[in-house]
């Protein structure tokens, strides 16, 4: 049994190393592109090294201890029981833990330090999507947080319903949105790109579909985006679109959704002012395409069961008009 056990232990650690080195998903905490996540990934590799060493040494002792007396007689040893306990159980762990304690405090300090020139973004956890506001600018959007590369970002996190948790693994650790308090998450995106985020705190029936994305772009690109989004959408150009707008305001839609510059001022659902610029519908439930939008309007409950968006019973023409209107919002 002993060689088998040795191999098994070794294979685990090897498999873990390879898998961790090879993984490159888009929510990979070790594929760090933010200041905070890079610190944490560094910390992880330090701990992984220590852990692998400890596992191999202690696991080796366990296996060796178990097999050395297998012939039924104890084998003499110069290592006394108290030496095992004092050195292995007390002294070595204490040293390792002291190192970790120091690293914990210094890393925490580095990550929690506020900066002066941070871009402030206010994010509110909703059931089951995220509202995103830029204080001082007329921008309200949903499920997408745009940030400039290289500038520190301070995300204010609040909720007026249940607890959620804001997590973009490639950029930073997670922070909860807790009703009754405003939490802050700080990070700096170091590379342009789209980073997927998820809700990490169980928040009810559609906790699984509460995705979002952080889009980091060049400071110039970010400013252009911000300027474009500060102005309300243009008036409808085609007749179908105009008809769609009318329907939107007449049907229950406007009771829950806002489109800036129109009479739709509902607060319960996401602001749809820049709807077409978003990648997904239903906080990551489906891709944002006209076909999916038409489906979403009619049968949101089968795409995202339990979501607060009801199924609407509409004629084909009505759906086409609504889709045309919503697709014009940019």
């Amino acid at each position, binding site marked *: 049994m002993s060689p088998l056990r040795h191999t098994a232990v070794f294979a685990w650690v090897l498999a873990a190393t390879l898998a961790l080195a090879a*993984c490159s998903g888009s929510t990979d905490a070790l594929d760090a592109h933010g200041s905070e996540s890079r610190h944490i990934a560094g910390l992880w590799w330090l701990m992984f090294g220590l852990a692998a060493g400890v596992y191999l040494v202690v696991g080796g002792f366990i296996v060796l201890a178990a097999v050395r007396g297998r012939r039924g007689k104890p084998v003499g040893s110069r290592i006394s029981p108290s030496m*095992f306990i004092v050195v292995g159980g007390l002294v070595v762990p204490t040293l390792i833990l002291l190192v970790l304690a120091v690293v914990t405090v210094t890393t925490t300090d580095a990550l929690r330090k506020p900066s002066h020139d941070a871009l402030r973004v206010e994010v509110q956890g909703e059931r089951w999507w995220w509202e995103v506001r830029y204080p001082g600018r007329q921008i309200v959007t949903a499920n997408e947080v745009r940030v400039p590369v290289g500038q520190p970002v301070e995300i204010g996190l609040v909720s007026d319903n*249940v607890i959620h948790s804001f997590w973009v*693994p490639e950029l930073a650790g997670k922070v909860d949105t807790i009703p009754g308090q405003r939490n802050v998450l700080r990070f700096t995106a170091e590379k342009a790109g789209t980073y997927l985020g998820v809700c990490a*705190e169980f928040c009810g029936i559609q906790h699984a579909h509460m995705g979002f994305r952080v889009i980091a772009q060049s400071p110039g690109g970010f400013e252009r985006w911000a300027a474009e989004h500060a102005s309300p959408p243009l008036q409808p150009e085609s007749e179908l679109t105009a008809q769609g707008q009318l329907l939107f305001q007449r049907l229950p839609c406007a009771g829950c959704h806002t489109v800036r510059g129109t009479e739709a001022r509902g607060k319960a659902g996401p602001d749809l002012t820049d709807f077409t610029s978003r990648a997904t519908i239903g906080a990551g439930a489906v891709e944002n395409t006209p076909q999916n939008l038409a489906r979403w309007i009619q049968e949101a409950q089968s795409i995202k069961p339990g979501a607060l968006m009801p199924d609407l019973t509409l004629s084909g023409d009505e759906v086409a008009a609504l889709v045309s209107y919503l697709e014009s919002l940019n």
Partner: protein
Amino acid sequence: MATTEVRPAAEEPEHLEEIWEDDPGIPGFFSTIDHKRIGKRYIYTCFIFFAVGGVMALVMRMQLAGSDNTVLSPGAYNELFTVHGTTMIFLFNTPVLAGFGNYLLPMMIGTRDMAFPRLNAFSYWIFLFAGVFFYSSFLVGSAPDGGWFAYTPLTDKVYSPGLNLDFWGLGVAFVGISTTVGAVNFIVTTFKLRAPGMSLNRLPMYVWSMLVFSFMVIFAVPSVTLAAGLLELDRLFGTAFFVPKAGGSTLLYQHLFWFWGHPEVYILFVPAAGMISMIIPVFSRRPLAGYLWVAASLVAIGFISFGVWVHHMFATGMPALALSFFAAVSLLIAIPSGVQFFAWIATMWHGAVRFTTAMLFALGFLLVFLLGGITGVMVAVLPFDWQATDSYFIVAHLHYVLNGAVVFPIFAALYFWLPKITGRMLNERLGRVSFWTMFLGFNLAFFPMHILGFLGMPRRVYTYSSGLGWEALNLVVTLGSFAFGLGVLLTLINAVVSHFRGARAPDNPWGADTLEWATSSPPPDFNFEAVPVVASRHPLWDQQPLPVADSGIDDATRAFGPAGAHEHTTPITGGLRAAPETTMRIPEPTILPVVFAAGLAVFVVGLLVQALVVGVAGLALGLLGLAWWVWRIGEH
């Protein structure tokens, strides 16, 4: 007190059996207060809950085997993971350890029953009724779905309007009575009923662990009872302890919950470690190395575990300074675990290991818990936890700790002690197959979850999209979980078959050292006709033949000898050295504990359905049972 060298031939054994035996049939079933019958019932009931909770896990794994599966609706998934977690913590792990304690502890310390046998029956009935109450939620289609931690405000009346969470809140508060009452019983039993000469430094390590377990329960459980109780006040009577909009605090709930919740992890680990400290020495054929170190470690864990609860709340936005304190304490608690680890290693190193199934499970425990302990240290490191918390990394870690470091010892204990309990040996070959299936399945199921955590998979999602690189690993996890389930099934089959067909177990099949092996397998109702006299930490190794006490003429020593067994009594001892003090009369069987427990159960149902009549009727029945119970104590 005189001692004789040889166990006296049982005089009138038939007569002795009659004095101790329960009424036959149904009345005897409800009225028994024999710690062994109650302990067995605990263990068997817990394994039923374990099997049910395990099947739930397998159904969840089917849902997560691939992306966008539709085996389960989101609502059903949320119910399953809530009930799975609640079952494993409240209805399996905690009570099964109490069950083993119930069966083993009195025999290990050489007495004839627990200090409060009726209270003992009461705590079993409460546990059973709480479990049935909790599971009855499925019958009305309202199983709890707010997570086993039931965070507010998600679980308040606004966001969870159904009865679902009331089953959880009332069930948790209800089952807490059972655990607490049991803990008091263990403490008093350990301090007052030890065999003469069993000083504290001769206590079997498992008894030490049950003592620490019990003190931890007494200080921790009130906190979760309070959390669940206040939650129910919010839900049923409109108070606002946890309602932020009305000035309540949702973080207060988290503090109350985890002030129990983290010690709870150690409440489970400590007795499991105690079992390991009994099993490894027996199969290493030498005493446990560093007895005092290990006992001190258990006590240290008991204290330190009350200073780590905030590490479940690292992402709640508390100030870094406060968090750093809890991070440091969470690192510190690794040290007493490390000490125990090396005590076990040293025991094997200086011994000669026999690879029985029980020992294989103990070795499996060591290798699994080692990894769970290491990842435990990692998540104590504050910044790393901000990435890891609420991801699958934690699911991996907690199963390495709770499934690996508690379930493996429980299986080791089954193979070790079941022969004593049933009088039949388990099949060793099937046991080995079961162990290897469980061990490989376990690592296949839970190791990849670490990596899924790094890949950004959050906990408690009923589905996930393709394209995130999560599918292959999730499939491996699902396959592993089924292998683990198969391994568990093999042991359950082994246990059932051995019950009917197993080889007869001798008194001491493993050549073990403690007093439970001094009596027959299965033990007689009275455990020991004459109480053993202890002069060593390892009476069955160092005191051959084992001396037993004669009955003295005074009240302090009369119960030691056969006269005590004939008079339905057991001796009370005291002080550090377990010196004779007086005689305790063991009460007659009675249905009053089950009446009291049933009354409380009806009261809880009354609260659930908000029916005043039901509540009052239940309370009246319970109080009547209690009053009669207290009244009749005087008769003895």
